[in-house]
């Protein structure tokens, strides 16, 4: 109907402008099976999380095949997807929609990153050494500043292990707080871009129900409700739940430790506690339980990915990087405490503690750009989806 003799006349608004680089990017970020999709829409039907009015992932597969980058990066459905992989296991073409959507999310971290180069750095194995070097050097600086040339205590085979002597808590907590402020500011820039992008690409704008959407999203995350709708990848739920609460608990532990062992001490409050904290101190207890949660949860997720179970989906660089780092934070944290409290071999203890701190800062400082950022983007997308009614479920309960 738009064709006239000899020359195509296509209205401007119907002209598709495929972004070929974007298609390549999706394929190289874990979605290499993308082009196998023949649009039968089995995926949208078998997905228990697919919404009534905006079914996915069939449409997203098509948009990705066509390189419709802007539309995809502003699509809340990417984040309604929790990679249950019911679509992937049922896909008649082995096009693996679950992997393609994971790739699109990975690209989102990169695209919304501020400063932009950080997005690239976290998804590029070539930058890994440099990324580790930054916290490693900062921590070495702290070590030399605090201990001067008197470093002999670090290399003893026996004796007291006093982590605070090597890395004074005050400085660490300053890095922790300062880092957090900066990180959240950077993350906020990315999130704001994402939010505006969401709004500008859809006619529906979030209504007045923002706060209630935020609360119900929070509740959903707290109970991991979406995960329990999964079929193929269902047992992941427990690993993720443990890791989630383990990480949250560890962050809370750090906050409480700051409050009671530094701020309260400075204020001369009777509530002040002298570090190091030991069991049965409740803060320490929270720390130990949380560390265990990270360790066990992380292990479940890692071993599921290692076994390459069908429902798990493809594991890419950013998946492994995030998972191994967060698991190692828990692991080295547990070791550090064990050595200080029960097996005091200073040389090993200090080394492990040093590694632990590098990992902690790696996790924290790069959170807006690594897969850790899914906690920000997903939460925001879910809030958007809830406040606009986007995510109205098709199914009331999985059958």
């Amino acid at each position, binding site marked *: 109907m738009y064709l006239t003799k000899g020359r195509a006349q296509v209205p401007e608004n119907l002209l598709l402008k495929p972004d070929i680089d974007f298609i390549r990017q999706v394929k190289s970020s874990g979605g290499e099976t993308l082009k196998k999709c*023949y*649009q*039968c*829409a*089995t*995926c*949208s*039907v*078998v997905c228990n999380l*697919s919404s*009534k*009015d*905006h*079914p996915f992932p*069939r*449409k997203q597969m098509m948009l990705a095949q066509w390189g419709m980058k802007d539309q995809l990066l502003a699509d809340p459905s990417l984040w309604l997807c929790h990679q249950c992989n019911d679509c992937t*296991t*049922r*896909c*008649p*073409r*082995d096009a693996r929609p679950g992997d393609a959507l994971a790739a699109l999310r990975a690209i989102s971290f990169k695209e919304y990153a501020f400063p932009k180069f950080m997005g690239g750095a976290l998804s590029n194995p070539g930058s890994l050494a440099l990324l580790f070097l930054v916290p490693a050097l900062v921590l070495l600086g702290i070590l030399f500043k605090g201990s001067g040339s008197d470093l002999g205590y670090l290399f003893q085979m026996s004796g007291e292990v006093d982590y605070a002597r090597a890395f004074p808590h005050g400085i660490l907590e300053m890095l922790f707080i300062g880092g957090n402020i900066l990180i959240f500011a950077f993350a906020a820039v990315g999130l704001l871009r994402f939010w505006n992008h969401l709004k500008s690409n859809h006619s529906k704008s979030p209504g007045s129900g923002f706060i209630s959407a935020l609360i119900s999203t929070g509740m959903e995350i707290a109970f991991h409700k979406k995960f329990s709708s999964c079929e193929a990848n269902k047992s992941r739920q427990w690993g993720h739940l443990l890791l989630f609460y383990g990480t949250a608990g560890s962050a809370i532990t750090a906050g409480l430790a700051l409050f009671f062992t530094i701020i309260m001490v400075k204020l001369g409050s009777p509530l002040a506690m002298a570090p190091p904290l030991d069991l049965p101190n409740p803060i320490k207890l929270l720390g130990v339980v949380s560390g265990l949660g990270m360790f066990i949860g992380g292990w479940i997720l890692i071993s599921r990915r290692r076994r390459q179970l069908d429902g798990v989906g493809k594991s890419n660089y950013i998946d492994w990087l995030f998972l191994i780092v967060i698991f190692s934070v828990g692991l080295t944290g547990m070791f550090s405490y064990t050595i200080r409290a029960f097996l005091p071999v200073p040389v090993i203890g200090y080394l492990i503690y040093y590694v632990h701190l590098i990992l902690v800062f790696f996790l924290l400082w790069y959170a807006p750009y690594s897969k850790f950022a899914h906690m920000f983007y997903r939460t925001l997308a879910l809030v958007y989806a809830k406040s606009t009614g986007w995510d109205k479920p*098709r199914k009331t309960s999985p*059958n």
Partner: protein
Amino acid sequence: MDISASGDRITTDILVVGGGIAGMTAAIEASEVGKSAVLVEKEPYLGGRVARMNQYFPKLCPPICGLEINYKRLRCNDQVKVLTLTTVESISGKPGNYEVKLLVQPRYINDNCTACGECEKVCTLEAPNDFNLGMNQRKAVYKPEMAFPPIYTADATHVKNAAFKACVDACKYDAFDLDQEPCTITVNARAIIWATGWSPYDALKLDNLGFGKYKNVITNVMMERLAAADGPSAGKILRPSDQAAIMKIGFVQCAGSRDENHLPYCSGVCCSASLKQTQYVREQYPDAEIHIFYIDIRTPGRLEDFYTKVDADEKIFFHRGKVAEIREAPDSNNVILVAENTLTGAISEMEMDLAVLATGMVPNVSTDKLPQDAKRDDWGFLLANNPSGIIGAGVANRPIDVANAVQDATGSVLRALQTLQRS
């Protein structure tokens, strides 16, 4: 070479395995150019899947007339030896000189049978009717529509039953021979044509489509029997759950086809078969709403005209999107078909009286006992020019419709003649 039999040994030019439309065609056409053939069929009747069709697409004529022409060609031909109730046990040798062991199952009825039917009338024993895909029962002594020879057959599992004596007593022609045992026959043949046809893909494996769980989910081959005059409902298409009329029916295309988890290939006939079946429904229920859910409608060649004709029917609706979930309505035996309409982007849940799964064809040759060097492709179809020299015909070669299977069978005879010429 003329066919010759001595004792339990038969010598022939060509052994044709499978008495469906392809096998019959091959045996008849070989004999009509002067070669002898032995035609082996495991059922007591010839015609195979075609005998169980209600109509052919796109002309919508009954297959029985074509089969009857073949029966006539067979009967006036002394160079084709037909062995029904017979299977192949083993094959040895090479092109030009095969030795094949056949196992013949007892029919328990001899040539005295006049097919008067007195035994069936008094018979009280029943078995699921395989001819109608188990949708009804038949007597323990029975005569399939296309029986060959046109006489009765008795079930091995029932002849020893005391109640069976009534059947024997009803026979005025001394046609029962309950002492028959399975026997082995050796065939020396110079060429082998393999035409064992297909089976419908097992719909029970499609666990999201509710077959076997919900009564009103049937397959396309069951639909053929429901529409057939000699079917379980005497040709009236009724809902299995309550034998009610059909007002809204959904056809589920690619049920387990073009699917890496099931049959990776397109059988190439299911689209046309469903289009044909819409016409069965249309004829019986002029007001019924008919819905076809598809990924692509594949109607190559002249079949496109058939599609265009069906598409013009204002009560036949086409939905682009595969049905990936079927569940039963909470308060009836209606079935709810769930698909995303990919043209509108909306998920549709439509309640139907009946859902028909268009399942594909699985080549029987994929599981047949064949010599090691009878190579098959990844999907189980017999490879052309495979080292065993066994020549495929019909769906043993690839998924095709009846007309193409007949042409393929004619082609297979030329290959067999080449084998004879070389040996």
